[in-house]
């Protein structure tokens, strides 16, 4: 804990803004969950997971299979620069074509290890809402839709959910609409926010606080959370190294990644 705090102080000066500090902290902690020999899939509008994958593969040199919505299998993205599309077909140009149909069949066969989704609402029982705010038939807000979440959330071995606007409106007691329920599966599910990292505790059927980001205290966490979360022993989230920050800024010089905060 002390060493983590020291690291924050040591590297803090490389950040241009708090926004980058938040997003880059999330990216490096997600990349820590991408392990050797995994099969990993990245979908549309997913710059945060795409950066985490690139970091794990090309900076940390971890050997895993990367599948994606651009349908490029293990593309050589060592010199890649992010575009506004995480499904950029150029990604396929740097690998061989492997369709999403085939990638999702891998998931049905139990061979997809890791997938990422952004959720607008998450509730304390692990339900995810990416569909509507309000009533489904007469929505107050019509969202983009859950894409593959209802399908893959139960099939992958490790699921990562992100919502970088943690508040009582986003982390709730009960979602307005259950786009996907993780209750039926027995996989590992992590929830990344701008304040914290949580993991779904299958024994209690509730989220458990794993770590707070270094600039967050427990009071701030609690007042920004509408769900009953298990808070027992928790740590401080790892902050990015200078090497990681440089890598992320080289891949995303235009800071497209920051749009998740707004």
């Amino acid at each position, binding site marked *: 804990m002390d060493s983590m705090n020291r690291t924050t102080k040591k590297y803090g000066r490389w950040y241009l803004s708090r926004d980058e500090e938040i997003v880059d902290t999330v990216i490096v902690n997600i990349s820590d969950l991408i392990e050797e020999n995994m099969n990993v899939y990245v979908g549309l509008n997913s710059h945060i997971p795409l950066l985490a994958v690139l970091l794990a593969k090309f900076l940390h040199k971890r050997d895993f299979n990367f599948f994606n919505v651009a349908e490029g299998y293990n593309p050589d993205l060592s010199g890649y620069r992010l575009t506004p599309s995480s499904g950029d077909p150029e990604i396929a140009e740097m690998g061989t074509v492997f369709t999403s149909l085939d990638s999702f069949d891998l998931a049905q066969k139990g061979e997809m290890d890791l997938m990422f989704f952004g959720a607008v609402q998450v509730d304390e029982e692990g339900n995810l809402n990416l569909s509507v705010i309000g009533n489904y038939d007469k929505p107050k807000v019509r969202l983009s839709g859950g894409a593959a979440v209802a399908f893959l959330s139960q099939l992958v071995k490790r699921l990562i959910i992100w919502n970088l606007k943690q508040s009582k409106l986003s982390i709730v007691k009960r979602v307005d609409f259950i786009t*996907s329920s993780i209750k039926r599966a027995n996989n590992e599910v992590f929830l990344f926010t701008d304040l914290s990292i949580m993991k779904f505790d299958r024994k209690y059927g509730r989220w458990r606080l794993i770590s707070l980001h270094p600039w967050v205290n427990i009071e701030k966490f609690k007042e920004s959370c509408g769900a009953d979360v298990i808070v027992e022993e928790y740590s401080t989230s790892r902050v990015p190294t200078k090497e990681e920050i440089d890598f992320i800024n080289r891949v995303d010089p235009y800071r497209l990644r920051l749009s998740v905060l707004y």
Partner: protein
Amino acid sequence: MKLKGVDEALKLISEGDTITISGMSIHRNPMSFISSLIKSGIRNLSFIDREPGLGLEVLIKNHVLKKVRVAMAIMEWIGTPPNFRRAAEKGEIEVIEDVCGAFMAGIRAGAFGVPFMPVRGIIGSDLVRIHEAINSWKVIRDPFTGDEILTVKAIKPDVAIIHVHKADPEGNAEILGPIYEDVLKAKAARKVIITTEEVVSTDYFKGREPTISGYYVDAVIKSPKGAYPTSMYGLYEPDYEKIWEMVFE
């Protein structure tokens, strides 16, 4: 000889039909044909696809659609298509949210000529209730294991509009780069319109399997830059300024 003009191909689409289009989000949408469709005055269409973006958005903006069944409508970094959102919130279009795995199962069933297809996962989602009410999904017992499994009724669009890199006058077509579910869409649809960057001679496909066989195809339209301003793999990137203008202005 299936090479046709746009006006002739538009006759394949009737008021009330269900259409599907090629590509995804802001990539390889049949944009040229879509603007002709908008100008044609054909209205009250239903739209089915997995992860559409710009093509869907301009059809909604121009009041061509009444019903939309998609797993996600997304303009990538631009976010949720604003006209899709507005029309759904105002009740101008009916939105039936799908799931990627379920769309894939349904379009496979349509392409394979079987009545339905099982798909794993999904059960526990409120979307099951939405789809059971319109008879497009059903939870059944696996006849072999007795476990619950979701089944998706075959998806058979009336017309698929697919933009490709190369096509010959018989309708044989080649797509380079990502293919998405375009082959299945062509096989499942009752009618298929191919728009192509380039028309090649029939010799080009001799002895090879085309991405889409001319057997399935009703019309081929020469349409260079036909996906613009969405991207075309290997030929052009998305024109973000133009996309922004089409969506917001």
